[in-house]
């Protein structure tokens, strides 16, 4: 029961909208990746203190994202009627939440070992991180179109605009894949310089960053299902 307000009211019929927290949650994921981008720059420049500090900041943001996710889930009881299927919404929340989770993992992975590799590899990492960040930021734009969709109650034109963004996220994720593969090759080409632990550390780092873009693409795909299947 809500706190005593001494009213008999129509309020009970209005449930809190999960869509606004969804957008905030997506932005938390974006914030994590932006911090991770900074952290990777610092890492390539050998500034391990900054890497440590950013790792802690990302931990905090990731936790905030988790709290938002839990709130959205707990408020979606079976009696809540949404303009989309609640299951579809939860299915898209999950990969969206992984964006911050995966960023957290990569941020931690950066703290465990110093960067020791040729410049072309650090350039490769910068490129990979930049494209991943672009993918995630485009994904944030995509999620923010939800409010307009709700406002017009899913007009055809707005649905089309949203679907175009989904395709663009998917294309960008594909570019990340290509950079990712080339970078892994490059790491192994330099295995003599980097050494076995370095190869293991860096290749897992490549995988970790690539996963973030994967999750954004995955969430975009689920969002499309949610919008189309309603």
């Amino acid at each position: 029961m809500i706190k005593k307000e001494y009213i008999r009211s129509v309020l009970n019929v209005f449930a809190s909208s999960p869509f606004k927290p969804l957008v905030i949650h997506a932005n938390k994921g974006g914030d994590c990746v932006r911090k991770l981008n900074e952290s990777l720059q610092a890492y390539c420049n050998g500034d391990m203190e900054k890497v440590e500090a950013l790792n802690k900041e990302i931990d905090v943001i990731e936790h905030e994202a988790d709290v938002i996710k839990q709130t959205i889930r707990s408020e979606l009881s079976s009696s809540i009627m949404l303009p989309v299927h609640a299951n579809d919404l939860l299915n898209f929340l999950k990969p969206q939440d992984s964006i911050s989770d995966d960023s957290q993992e990569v941020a931690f992975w950066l703290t465990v070992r110093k960067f020791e590799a040729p410049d072309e590899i650090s350039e490769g990492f910068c490129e990979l991180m930049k494209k991943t960040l672009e993918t995630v930021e485009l994904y944030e734009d995509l999620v923010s179109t939800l409010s307009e969709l709700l406002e017009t109650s899913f007009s055809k034109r707005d649905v089309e605009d949203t679907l175009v963004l989904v395709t663009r996220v998917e294309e960008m994720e594909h570019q990340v894949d290509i950079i990712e593969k080339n970078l892994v090759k490059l790491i192994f080409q330099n295995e003599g310089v980097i050494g076995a632990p370095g190869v293991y550390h860096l290749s897992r780092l490549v995988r970790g960053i690539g996963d973030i873009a994967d999750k954004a693409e995955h969430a975009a795909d689920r969002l499309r299902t949610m919008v189309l299947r309603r």
Partner: protein
Amino acid sequence: MSFFDPLVLLLVAAGLYMAWNIGANDLANAMGTSVGSGALSIKQVIIIAALFEFGGAVLFGKRVTSTIAKGIVPIDSISLIDPHLVTIGMLAAILAAGFWITLATFYNLPVSTTHSIVGAVLGFGLMAAYNGMIGYTEINWTVLGKIVGSWLVSPLLGAFIAYIIFSLIRYFVLQKTDDPYNIEKKFVILQIMTACYIAFAHGSNDVANAVGPLYAGLHSLEMADVGIPLWVMALGGIGMVIGLATWGYRVIETIGTRITELTPTRGFSAEFATASVVVLHSYSSLPISTTHTLVGSVIGVGLAGGLAAVDLSVIGKIIVSWIVTVPVAALTSALIFAGLLGVGI
């Protein structure tokens, strides 16, 4: 019988309390949706509500008032035995309904004043029949059946009309625009009109909950004619407006800040549907719950895809409150009536 008879004064006071309660809660609920969508400020809402609520009560409230006063219980037969019996019975009814409503308000339960007063009046009738003043068959079960049926129909009708209206707005306006936010701005004016409409509708139906029993009492004591005196209707109107101004504004504020989802297009659809359903019932002399109809209409907008999240569990709560209210109000009213007779008033 003088107006200053203690029994009459008590009845007037109880009627005013009921009117205050209705204004403070039910009217505030109906008007809160206009504030939520940002169409009007609270001050403007109170002024509009005061004017149109009063207008609805005085100009269009007599049919339902008549139903509450003499449509269910045959007060003329009872007053043949003793005119005071009706006054005492109606006092019992209004006290019982007022008590139940106060309790429900305390616990934030979605209880309707209409259901309470109908149940309470029925309780008085049943106790009269139990004491052999009238036969059980003299209670107008047909009218009662119609009233109860209208409680089921009115939220459904509200949902249906709101669904149609919002679907039309969606198809012809929202989906054809590049700038939905601009459309919302244009709907603000329409929503101001529906705010007036809903206040009028509410006044025309709910004033009966306060002045129906009062009129019945006065009528038996031959202080009121077959036609309902204007001052009685005005008393109900004033009571409701005072309730809104002294307490209801807080309720409006609470509702307004919580339902930001209800933008002017959505608010317009829900309010227009609600007001139309309520006016239709006022015309048919049937007392219904404005709040429950409004809930139905909001669900209708939700079904048409207009709202981000609608909690359907409220339907269950309303049905429970509906099933509980009538017997509880009836029993309380019957007991108060028996008690008042017992102490020899």
